């Protein structure tokens, strides 16, 4: 069984690599959006929090779009039926897929981040804290997005609207991310622990709810 879990992870990794083109396209759009944002407010004096808030919102949307795209493809009815009949719990497959999406987004962001920071006029000394913050917060964002996606891709269009109920779950991440930017130079703070705690909380119920929604709404 462990041998096959490893094979599964290896193949999910392969799939993740193949899907990297789409992530690169999304981050290229982020570059364009950042350029437009910088140009639009070039004559205004503003604090770093505004730029970071902009960055966070765009990354939030990128994550939602990416998870949605992966889920629509990887949990189409025929694939989902095979996953349900697999000896592995659907929760495990959901977990592996989420982690692969996370690695994919983080990897591409780390490559793009120096350029994004330069375009947004953020000092490069913030590069590591911003990456660290994203590494911690994106885990929760992906797991919450997976719940949203599992409802939105359902066969029943009327039910899809209920996915908005998951959106408030994103709010604490955005609030705490912004709170961290207010601390001078993103100093190591107990606030970082929040992201770990929030991720653990999400980890406890998100794969369960995601697979429940997939089983009930998409087959």
């Amino acid at each position, binding site marked *: 069984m462990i041998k096959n879990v490893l094979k599964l992870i290896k193949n999910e990794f392969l799939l993740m690599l193949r899907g990297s083109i789409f992530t690169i396209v999304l981050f290229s759009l982020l570059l364009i959006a950042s350029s437009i944002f910088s140009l639009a407010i070039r004559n205004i004096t503003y604090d770093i929090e505004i730029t970071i808030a902009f960055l966070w919102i765009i990354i939030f949307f990128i994550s939602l779009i990416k998870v949605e795209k992966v889920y629509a493809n990887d949990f189409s009815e*025929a694939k989902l039926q095979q996953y349900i009949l697999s000896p592995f719990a659907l929760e495990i497959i959901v977990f592996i897929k989420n982690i692969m999406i996370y690695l994919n987004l983080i990897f591409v962001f780390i490559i793009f981040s120096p350029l994004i920071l330069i375009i947004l006029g953020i000092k490069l000394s913030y590069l590591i804290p911003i990456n660290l913050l994203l590494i911690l917060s994106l885990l929760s964002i992906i797991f919450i997005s997976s719940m949203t996606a599992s409802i939105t891709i359902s066969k029943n269009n009327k039910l899809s609207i209920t996915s908005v109920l998951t959106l408030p779950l994103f709010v604490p991440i955005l609030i705490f991310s912004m709170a961290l930017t207010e601390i001078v130079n993103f100093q190591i703070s107990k606030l970082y622990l929040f992201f770990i705690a929030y991720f653990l909380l999400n980890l406890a119920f998100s794969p369960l709810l995601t697979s429940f929604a997939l089983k009930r709404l998409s*087959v």
Partner: protein
Amino acid sequence: MIEIRNLSFARGNDLIFKNISLEVKHGEMMVLKGANGQGKTTLLSNILNFLDPLEGEIIYDGRVIDNATSSKYFLYIGENNFAYDELSLNDNIKYWLAVHNVNFSQEVRDKSIKFLFDELNLNKKFYQLSYGQKKKLQLLLLMLVNKPVWILDDPFNGLDNKTIEKIIILLTKKLENNGLILISSHQDVLTLEHKIFQL
């Protein structure tokens, strides 16, 4: 044995079928017949526990079917393809065998592939294959995943005569090994002894 007792299913206000009862024993094959929209696929989905019936129950070897039973005993090949377009044929085979927690030596796998495909470049991407070849990849699971019950939704659709004959050989072997087969099909290609259930 699969036993269906007074099964009814509705989608919203539409009653798809009502009070269906049937019985299939190990070593038997049953073919579900019926016009489009009569609920053949829906009935199979009920048996697989993908859908909850409105009324009635489905029992396998004395137990009401749940997720654990269906994943342990049932192998399902549906109408739609489940393989990943972006993976090669070889990677798809490895992936889906891993999903079904199956380990085979390269030799056995190659033998099975040769039986169904004759000659094929395993490095071809899945999207480069024809409809029939794609279907064969799904049917390859029949040879490699060992589960006592096969549930097949229109398995002969899009296949050439030669491949249909090969599938019939597989079905024959399965029945000889006391397997249980449930098929929905529009085509009368089965030369094997089988029960028919008209929906």
